[in-house]
């Protein structure tokens, strides 16, 4: 008797976590837009509050619509459970607050989304949690930065914006050797491109605003527990292995085993910090997740065509896509990301900051905004927007040139996107030409 195959990603993306609505038979997951839920009797109520029964009390803690999304993402990632949060930032904060307190330390990759960097570099130190940033491409740098009070190793599966590919197996080994979990932000990759738990990661976070949704109409986050990290053996996580006075001395690892982390995050973090997701938002994200596989396939297909086009263009001095010959992560990307390296990448224009501005202003189809992972193609010129206060030297320190452009490739016809890019490149080329004749 062989084990039946598990359902595939596209099937889970449509079905995991949902059943026809028991009350109405509705096939689509209904939006349970209710702050609270009735108890049939007092004992039932007491049993819900005391974690004896499964069910919903108050939508800050759990909600039937959110529960479908949470279970679906946990299924797609092959974890034990997930929590939907108000944003990706909320997911990151929830994870950190669940694992540590003042006096703790995090080792994080330097190549991070700006919001994550702000939290780690500026906000958490006020609460007594310090972070050491290291080169995402150097697993030994992670090892060297670990201190006695380190409680988490954190990085993105592919870094923002340079697409540094994280060597998850090696960094996970470094973390585990020190009795620490590895958390990865898989927003750019989604479970379609990589399943980080299969490579050794322990916790995954997503900004669901991006590829998971695709439509760019909501803000949301997901925190997923892989269930393999042994909190008791580590001995460094009293929030999970020692009695919690805030819940009648519940010891999460004792009562919930592999789900200790995600249960503590819900029972304490959602309850106390309150960064929950709206059920309507969960519904919108579910609509996106249903087509995750076919969308990501098209995102990557379009990206490859555009990368190829840009890589051969005379106005482009560099394209940072890990599948390209000569990219420092090409071999690693081939091993870990065979289905593609996301649909967000950056490239450098000849002509610097002015060329970058001209390029962006000349585009019609690409939307000029600060987001990624939309079904529509997006563009931003960091030197004139997100990083406009930085001079050339400061930009270079962050791996960004004055002519660096970040693209998020959408689902339009690739030929139309290329035609739009040609317009931008012509405009950038005129600026560059003027610069070259200026004495």
């Amino acid at each position, binding site marked *: *008797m*062989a*084990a*039946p195959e*598990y*359902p595939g990603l596209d099937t*889970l993306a449509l*079905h*995991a*976590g*949902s*059943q026809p609505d028991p009350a109405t038979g509705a096939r689509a997951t209904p939006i349970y837009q209710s702050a609270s839920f009735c108890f049939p009797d007092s004992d039932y109520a*007491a*049993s819900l509050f*005391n*974690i*004896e*029964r*499964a*069910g*919903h009390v108050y939508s800050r*803690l*759990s*909600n039937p619509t*959110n*529960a479908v999304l*949470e*279970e*679906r993402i*946990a*299924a797609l990632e*092959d*974890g*034990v*459970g*997930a*929590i*939907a949060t108000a944003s990706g930032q909320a997911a990151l904060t929830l994870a950190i607050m669940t694992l540590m307190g003042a006096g703790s330390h995090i080792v994080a990759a330097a190549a991070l989304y700006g919001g994550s960097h702000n939290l780690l570099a500026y906000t958490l130190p006020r609460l007594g949690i310090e972070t050491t940033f290291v080169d995402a491409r150097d697993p030994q740098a992670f090892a060297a930065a670990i201190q006695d009070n380190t409680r988490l190793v954190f990085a993105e599966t592919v870094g923002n914006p340079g697409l540094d590919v994280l060597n998850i197996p090696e960094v996970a080994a470094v973390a585990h050797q020190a009795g620490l979990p590895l958390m990865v932000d898989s927003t750019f990759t989604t479970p379609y491109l990589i399943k980080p738990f299969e490579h050794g990661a322990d916790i995954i976070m997503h900004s669901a605003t991006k590829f998971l949704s695709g439509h760019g109409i909501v803000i949301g986050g997901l925190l997923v527990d892989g*269930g*393999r990290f042994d909190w008791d053996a580590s001995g460094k996580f009293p929030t999970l292995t020692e*009695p919690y006075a805030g819940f*009648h*001395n*519940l*010891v999460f690892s*004792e*009562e*919930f*085993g*592999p*789900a200790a982390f*995600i249960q503590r995050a*819900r029972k304490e973090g959602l309850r106390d910090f309150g960064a929950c997701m709206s059920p309507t938002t969960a519904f919108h994200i579910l609509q996106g997740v249903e087509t995750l596989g076919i969308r990501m396939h098209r995102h990557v297909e379009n990206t490859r065509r555009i990368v190829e086009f840009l890589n051969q263009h005379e106005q482009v001095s560099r394209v940072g896509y890990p599948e390209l010959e000569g990219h420092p992560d090409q071999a690693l990307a081939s091993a870990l990301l065979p289905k593609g390296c996301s649909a967000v990448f950056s490239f450098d224009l000849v002509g610097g900051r002015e060329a970058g501005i001209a390029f962006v202003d000349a585009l019609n189809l690409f939307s000029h905004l600060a987001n990624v992972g939309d079904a529509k193609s997006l563009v931003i010129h960091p030197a004139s927007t997100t990083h406009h206060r930085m001079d050339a030297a400061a930009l270079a320190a962050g791996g960004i040139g004055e002519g660096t452009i970040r693209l998020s490739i959408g689902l339009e016809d690739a030929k139309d996107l290329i035609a739009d890019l040609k317009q931008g490149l012509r405009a950038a080329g005129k600026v560059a030409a003027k610069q070259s004749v200026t004495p």
Partner: protein
Amino acid sequence: MKITIDDSSVYCYTNSRNIDSSKPSIVFIHGSGMDHTVWTLAARHFARHGNNVIAVDLPGHGRSTGAPLQSIPSMADWLEKVLDALEVEAAAVVGHSLGSLIALDFSARHAKRARALAMVGTIVPMPVSGAILDACKNNDHAAFDMLTQYGLSKRHQYGGNRSSGIWMVGSSLRLYERSQPGALYFDMNACNEYQNGLESASAVECPVLMVLGSEDRLTPVRGTGPLQEAFHQPEVSVIQGAGHTLMMEAPNALLDALHRVL
């Protein structure tokens, strides 16, 4: 709570309470390759309702040390030692799958110490396929996959968990993956070799409850007739839509069913 039996440390989840001799006691026994955490919700519930709860980790499982035991009678005898160590005179015994056979054998051979018997996800005899036994013997992950997939109803392969955000397939796999190498094989083999369950059933004197999942593919309802007939007027509760992993698939319905004898 940790106690020592046969020079090995035995873990019993008691909801962080000491055993109170004035209260009735309930013992919960997990299934093959699992541990006490499968009973967390039920144990918390019956603890709040005035019972001593004792959710054991069998030897070589969960937080208990020592070598896994290799037969149902040896596990039942071990359970009696646990009650001795805890100074519990009699208890209701609740078991799932492998645990249900241990509870049955204990209730038959140590009748004075069993005040009620609840068999969850059960059948007697409980034959195990050669393919599963081989995979268990080889510590092959395919054993975890087979038991997870056949353990959940077909519907629950896709989730629909009443416990928010918890993916049942992943939870089941992680529990099996945590098991000590060899433990699952000894457990499954003990189930397979336990041949005198029907005689044990006919010897049980205490109230009996069988809780079955209508979609159980490992211990299907249709095969439980002989066991139902062997008991003296058992209570039988069939939970619609649930498979073998009832604590995960139907925690609330299971609690309600257990109240019939606890």
